[in-house]
């Protein structure tokens, strides 16, 4: 069998493939420990130091290299991501809930929603800013126009995640609740929601991280106040220093922290579901 030869070759290949994916980031991580403030964003490492991390938090004596303008941008990005997460998840849960029943025009609505994640950001961004700037004549802000565009982008992800969850959902528990005379709203709160909570959590995670990192839409649709990706983009045109690398390492760690919170919440909800199932068994 030729796959006896093929498999080890492909295994090695996949090793190189993963190196290709991680290589730049490893280099970036190493260079973030470059000596400062003279050390540049390239090899060789003059001396290992945490200068650029301290520089990021403003703990170094002033030098010719200005600190990254990330403080306020970070707060804005977190706020925007939170607003987007809440709105996109609510819209996503509602739309997916509607899709559990057959209805006329379901195909059109499905494609309309999915279009939001397929249209390139540069187009939605341009369109949104045209609409705001030239037609309606309002100022663009990260919390207004950019927020609208962010929801257009993240709502389809929340919708698809919820659709996948609700597809596997056993509707008979809801019917049992309804037949016992419980109102649909209470049923949703007490029966449906706890069961779909893991999906909701995933939808929230998607919406938050996509919005937090969103760049092209924000570039066009937000006003002068920058979000975090815009602040990073601003440093591209000027000379780059290893502080941006240190910053890259920090944001990655932040993402992992977020992933850990998600993992813990997910674990808790699964455990609670198990506990409830056990109590039911006893009863």
């Amino acid at each position, binding site marked *: *069998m*030729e*796959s006896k030869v093929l*498999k080890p070759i*492909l295994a090695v*290949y996949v090793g190189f*493939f*993963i190196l*290709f*994916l*991680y*290589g*730049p980031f490893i*280099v970036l991580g190493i*260079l973030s420990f470059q000596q400062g403030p003279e050390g540049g*964003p*390239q*090899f*060789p490492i003059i001396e290992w130091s945490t200068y650029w991390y301290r520089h990021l938090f403003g703990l170094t004596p002033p030098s010719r290299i200005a600190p990254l303008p990330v403080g306020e941008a970070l707060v804005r990005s977190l706020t925007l991501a939170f607003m987007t997460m809440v709105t996109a998840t609510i*819209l996503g849960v*509602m739309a997916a*809930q*509607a899709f559990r*029943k057959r*209805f006329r025009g379901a195909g059109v609505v499905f494609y*309309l*929603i999915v279009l*939001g994640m*397929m*249209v*390139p*950001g*540069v*187009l*939605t961004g*341009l*369109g*949104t800013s*045209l*609409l705001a700037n*030239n037609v309606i004549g309002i100022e663009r802000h990260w919390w207004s126009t950019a927020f*609208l*565009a962010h*929801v*257009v982008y993240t*709502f389809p992800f929340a*919708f698809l995640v919820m659709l996948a969850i609700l597809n596997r959902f056993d509707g008979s528990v809801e019917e049992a609740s309804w037949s016992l005379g419980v109102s649909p709203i209470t049923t949703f709160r007490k029966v449906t929601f706890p069961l779909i909570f893991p999906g909701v959590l995933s939808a929230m995670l998607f919406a938050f991280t996509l919005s937090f*990192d969103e*760049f*092209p839409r924000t570039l066009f649709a937000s006003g002068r106040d920058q979000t975090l*990706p815009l602040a*990073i*983009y601003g440093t*591209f045109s000027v000379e*780059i220093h290893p502080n941006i*690398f240190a*910053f*890259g390492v920090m944001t*990655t760690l932040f993402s992992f922290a977020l*992933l850990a919170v998600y993992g813990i919440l997910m674990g808790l909800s699964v455990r609670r579901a198990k506990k409830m199932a056990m109590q039911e068994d006893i009863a």
Partner: protein
Amino acid sequence: MSAASTNRETKNTFRLLAPGVVWMILFLVAPIMMIVYVSFWTQTTFSINSTLTLDSWRNFFASEAYVGALWTTIRLWLIVLTLTFVIGYPAALYVGLLVKSKTVSTVLLVLCVIPFWTSFLIRVLAWRPMLGKEGAINIILQKFGLIDTPIEVLLFSELSVIIGMTQIYVVFMVGPIAFMLGRIDRNIIEAARDLGAGFGRIFWKIIFPLSLPGVVVGAIFVSVMVLGEFATSGALSGRKVNLLGNIIVTQVGSLKWAMASVVGVILTILLGIVVAGFLRIVDLKREI
């Protein structure tokens, strides 16, 4: 079911869908319509008014730089698409089909996804210390004595944009292909083998056709993202490579809304043709 309850159900569906649908019409469909509309507006040096004209369209096709950007976009898209497929398919083949253990396959897929937890712009920027004249690749190549002088064409060239985009988007090709490969019934392959088919024959007659929907989905993902790109080309080419996206950004920057809209419409048409073309290859609805 009584007419009243059907009616109530329809109402309920409508209530659940209305907010999302209205949001998408107002903030997605309307903005895209706006791009088409504004592309026919009259642009003067400092302002723009809604008198309809074809001037911006004529200017686009008369300008070598703009038409050049269209061809650069198409060329880079074809190159990156081919590379993501050629580099991604073997990886997907291993992850989705050859690895027997489900755990190993999941771990490998997660490993591929982890880099996406770093900011997109940081991932683009990470290529600079990698490709630069004093970058990691040049240093390694020199250490091994493979080259004497650093290769300068690695950074701030079309090549660096291609490398950067391939690395960023290849996972979108691997994911769908690996998914489709994972769904192949192993018994079919076993049966073909028992009947004496070699691996090449099994691959071309069974594995590849069955993975084609994955290839198409991956190709659509990669195409949509590459065609709408401007950040990677901006950051890694030193403004030497101008894609349609870059033109839109610079036009908006100098308040030339009409020209930006013309480029936007052309980009939309290009995307429409590409996606429709891919969807003709396989009927996705039937496959998934």
